[in-house]
């Protein structure tokens, strides 16, 4: 069956917009994806008919809102195949989820211990660990990558020591598109008793994610990169960890009993959800995941792989193009530079032609340094992009290169 991209496009109101008088070609999906009408309506319906604070009132609306909020949690758990919805904590996004873990495991980390990350991490999965290591006088170790953008697995194996407290790795690189062999990494780390946190920000919308199968200890993602709303995210954590780690923030919702002298904390997941949560965000996320599910993540993967292959082939026809990130296993992201042309200039001209791409360092400055570039141009695809849009982009790129050389 052909991928129903025309139908899908009609689900996304923003795509029919013109930008600079040209039809919008939105190739900045790794930064954030657009939202289908179903998600927009779900959020709007919540505020029109269900809005109430959750877990607090015994009145009708509060009951409805609480039920729907908890159903969303169950849905997320099912979507990523978590053992229990107790393992799903709603956060503000990937960054928030990672900071939650970095703060709560702080006490595990003693002077001269180490935490391992990789050379392709987003600043969100780098700075929290770096700062934790500085605070605890521990060492941050960085697994190198090869020039195609594959992790050096042998180097990783050698880095793990008895003092390694955590390994944090991205599922898919936002710059290179590399899909990392998470299952293998977890296997190796667990042999040494080291827990693994996976940054799934770029994965959820593009490949199937099964935390049970991956066996990772923590998995994080943002709703807005998977067709859901901004400001909503998830931390999945194995309950063995969540039960024993301390709370992250203190306040309402996360408590059982409070006196002026002491507080007993609520059970997981509530222990980690202080304050009023983003209920509409959770419902929007549920709807977005349901949207993905209906189309089928494997169909999406196959379609996006075709788009990527097509774009990769077309772009190599342009003189002086160097693709940054050629891993064997990659998806949905095409980063490149063109000899003698500044990415910022290209991005500016592409924008004039209605093509939205990202230029710059993509929150991964050390990675840019490794590839010896000051930045790249990144096109990143979503399920609503088409070959025809790739053609528009390639034409625009040729025009821009012409103007600049």
């Amino acid at each position, binding site marked *: 069956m052909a991928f129903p991209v025309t139908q899908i496009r009609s689900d996304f109101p923003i795509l029919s917009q013109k930008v600079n008088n040209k039809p919008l070609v939105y190739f900045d999906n790794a930064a954030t994806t657009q939202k289908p009408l179903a998600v927009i309506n779900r959020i709007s319906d919540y505020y029109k008919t269900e809005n109430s604070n959750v877990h607090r009132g015994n009145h009708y609306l509060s009951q409805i809102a609480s039920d729907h909020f908890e159903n969303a949690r169950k849905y997320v758990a099912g979507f990523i195949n978590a053992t229990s919805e107790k393992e799903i904590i709603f956060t503000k996004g990937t960054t928030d989820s990672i900071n939650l873990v970095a703060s709560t495991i702080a006490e595990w980390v003693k002077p001269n211990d180490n935490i391992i990350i990789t050379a392709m991490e987003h600043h969100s999965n780098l700075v929290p660990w770096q700062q934790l290591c500085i605070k605890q006088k521990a060492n941050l170790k960085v697994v190198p990558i090869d020039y195609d953008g594959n992790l050096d697995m042998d180097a990783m194996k050698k880095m793990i020591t008895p003092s390694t407290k955590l390994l944090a790795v991205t599922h898919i690189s936002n710059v290179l598109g590399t899909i990392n062999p998470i299952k293998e990494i977890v296997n190796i780390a667990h042999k040494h008793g080291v827990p693994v946190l996976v940054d799934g920000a770029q994965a959820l919308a593009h490949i199937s994610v099964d935390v049970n199968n991956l066996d990772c200890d923590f998995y994080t993602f943002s709703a807005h990169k998977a067709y859901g709303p901004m400001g909503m995210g998830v931390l999945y954590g194995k309950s063995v960890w969540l039960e024993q780690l301390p709370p992250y923030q203190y306040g309402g919702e996360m408590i059982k009993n409070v006196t002026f002298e002491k507080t007993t904390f609520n059970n997981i997941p509530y222990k980690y959800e202080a304050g009023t949560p983003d209920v509409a965000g959770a419902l929007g996320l549920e709807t977005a995941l349901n949207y993905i599910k209906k189309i089928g993540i494997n169909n999406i993967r196959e379609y996006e792989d075709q788009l990527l292959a097509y774009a990769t082939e077309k772009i190599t026809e342009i003189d002086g193009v160097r693709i940054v990130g050629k891993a064997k296993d990659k998806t949905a992201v095409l980063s490149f530079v063109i000899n003698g042309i*500044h990415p910022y200039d290209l991005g500016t001209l592409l924008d004039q032609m209605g093509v939205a791409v990202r230029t710059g360092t993509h929150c991964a400055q050390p990675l840019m340094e490794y590839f010896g570039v000051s930045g790249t141009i990144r096109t990143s695809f979503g399920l609503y992009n088409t070959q025809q849009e790739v053609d528009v982009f390639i034409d625009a790129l040729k025009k821009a290169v012409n103007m600049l050389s």
Partner: protein
Amino acid sequence: MTIQEKAKSVIDEFAIFDDWMDKYSYLIELGKELPLIDEKHKNQTYLISGCQSRVWLHAEENNGKIIFTADSDAVITKGIISLLIRVLSGSSPAKIIAADFSFLDEIGLKAHLSPTRANGLVSMIKQMKLYARALQLKSNR
């Protein structure tokens, strides 16, 4: 010419372009002209950091007027810099402090001055004004 007159001449010059390609081709042409800054000033001291495109700015006083020179590694940024310098350089500190940049709005380049663009232009203008202010304080003393 005053700053206003110079800005007006830029606006007139851009009025002939009726599509974006001509306008940007012209900017690129301006940007490709010889370095606007002495190579020896293209170093860390004069670099305006934290930007997607890098910008170098040098300023010096000549008979109560400020002479700006600048450069960028991105050619469109450099084209816009050359317009800014053409309008501002050679004026007195007081005039530079008072200058506004609505001429960029009129020629449809205002978006390049958005702080979120991170191309260094906003920081560059801030730096130009700071320099003018410092010079004014010095001469008032």
